[in-house]
């Protein structure tokens, strides 16, 4: 209402000034121009990122072609670059992380929006957000000296004994490996998934919730049959955002995954991720092709996270902009 009156007022004023021969305020033009310039900067930086990475990766794309993403041999000395072990490591560690983090994060989101008493909500959600504020390198440090020894001495022997018939849980117990990487990633993406899901659950109209409860549903039934179906696409979006973070996470996972370019069925075995190989080898890379190969991994990572982000934002946005009939 108010905004509708403001715009014509200013417009009429400047038109009036123009009529009187006075100039439209020069300061306004400059101000608007400068602000617009910086707004364009954001688009340009994103574009420049894509172009720079593409240019840097070109020697490698020309050199390796498709072999780059299906080849398993990574040997810079012989100019042989197959990034499959890194792609495999990134995917497996991220999926493992999702497997752990999704149920936990949804539990947190539901607890904070539907179940917790009001006085508890804001301190608990602050603590969950702090989980995201801890720097990645500190998770890595903790991973090296606390998590990995715990896995080696306790969790891996236990899993080996009880579930050892699965190839996932066979092999020597080293602590550093896919399992450690997946757990660290899970800890780091939990705040992302839970806070976005919480926003989504909050966007569900109160009338739906009340309606279900009034019909005699228990909290769980209301959640299961009305709230979750309504919020589904947004929750999928939250999970995809978490996946995007897991794929690109670098320091913590580099410090605990073991950094060996093997493809192994066992979660106990060391692996390597795309982000880790960039972090470890970039400053030592000599020659255009080697550097290009690392840049190409970066480009792949950039492209995948870009697509995931676009999809996730669209999904989350859909819940916020709910169908008219459902609004109270």
């Amino acid at each position, binding site marked *: 209402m*108010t*905004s509708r009156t*403001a715009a014509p*007022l*200013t417009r009429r004023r400047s038109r009036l000034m123009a009529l009187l021969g006075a100039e439209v*305020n020069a*300061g*306004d033009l*400059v101000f*608007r121009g400068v*602000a*617009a310039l*910086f*707004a364009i*900067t*954001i688009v340009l930086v*994103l574009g*420049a990122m894509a172009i720079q*990475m593409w*240019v840097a990766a070109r020697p490698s794309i020309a050199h390796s072609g498709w072999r780059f993403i299906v080849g398993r041999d990574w040997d810079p000395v012989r100019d042989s670059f197959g990034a499959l072990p890194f792609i495999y490591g990134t995917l497996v560690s991220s999926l493992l992380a999702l497997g752990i983090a999704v149920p936990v994060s949804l*539990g*947190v989101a539901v*607890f904070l929006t539907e*179940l917790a008493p009001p006085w508890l909500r804001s301190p*608990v959600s602050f603590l969950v*957000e*702090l989980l995201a*504020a*801890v*720097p990645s*390198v*500190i*998770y890595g*440090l*903790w991973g090296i*000296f*606390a998590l990995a020894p715990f896995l080696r001495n306790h969790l891996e022997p236990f899993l080996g004994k009880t579930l050892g018939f699965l190839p996932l849980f066979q092999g020597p117990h080293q602590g550093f490996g896919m399992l450690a990487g997946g757990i660290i990633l899970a800890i780091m993406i939990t705040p992302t998934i*839970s806070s976005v899901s919480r926003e989504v659950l909050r966007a569900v109209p109160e009338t739906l919730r009340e309606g279900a409860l009034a019909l005699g549903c*228990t*909290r*769980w039934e209301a959640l299961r049959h009305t709230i979750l179906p309504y919020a589904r696409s947004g929750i999928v979006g939250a999970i995809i*955002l978490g996946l995007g973070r897991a*794929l*690109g*996470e*670098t*320091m913590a996972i580099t*410090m605990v995954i073991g950094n060996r370019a093997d493809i192994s069925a066992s979660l106990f075995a060391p692996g390597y991720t795309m*982000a880790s190989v*960039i*972090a470890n080898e970039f*400053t030592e890379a000599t020659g255009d092709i080697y550097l290009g190969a690392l*840049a190409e991994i*970066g480009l792949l*990572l*950039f492209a995948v996270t*870009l697509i995931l*982000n*676009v999809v996730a*934002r669209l999904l989350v946005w859909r819940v916020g902009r709910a169908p008219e009939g459902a609004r109270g």
Partner: protein
Amino acid sequence: MKERYLQRKLVDAAVRGLCLLATVAALIPLGLVLFYVTSRGIGGLDWAFFTELPKPVGETGGGMANALLGTLELVGLACLFGIPPGVLAGVYLAEFGKHRFAKLVRFSADVMSGVPSITIGIFVYTLIVLRTKSFSAYAGGVALAVLMLPTVTRTTEELLRLVPEALREAALGLGVPKWRATLSVVLRTAAPGIATGIMLAIARVAGETAPLLFTAFNNAFWPTGLAQPTASLPVQIYTYAVSPYDDWHQKAWAAALVLIGMVLVLNVSARVLVRHRVRSR
């Protein structure tokens, strides 16, 4: 009938219990990390840690003064390069952003905040380090600024949108040009909130390691200029943590304690600021 009712109650209770359990489980790592960092780091904090340079391998003692200074330098540069453009872009989106172009900017900012920090490192490396042929504090600052930019922009926009339209109209009604109204009325009203957002953004980039690995790199000596490779706390923690020396591990924990202290202070004070503001309304 009664049995069915009981069963529904039980399922409901079980789900409630699981959700509570999940919340507790999510917070356990936070407690563990804070506990480890404090208990292992506190022993390494002495006067030398804050005032001396790192000693070469084999010699014990020494400190991380250069990395502390380097982190301040890098974060300062990041603020210089990241905050003014971010705030102005936010102003554009909130005050003039009603076209398709603004949508594109908003979308780019959102997408940019999801780009992995390591790829930002590669981007700045090819953009600056390759051209100047040297790792530098500048390059590190730019990398961190790129990380900050989307957060600062979106926070500024959101907070400016909360400023009541009546304030704008009142200013314009007094005959003030729009740019003055925006700068001295609208922005000033939203300033505490924007400051909070900026503090959170600073807390985030202060702990970033990946984009610094091949932009600011590392340095064992005092920083002599902004065009030199520069040490930083996160990179130093990484280097020490993956080294085989016990003394360095101890230093890494101590540095982690300092870093996490900085991050927590920024986060908590940002939160207190927000709450104070809400209450004073």
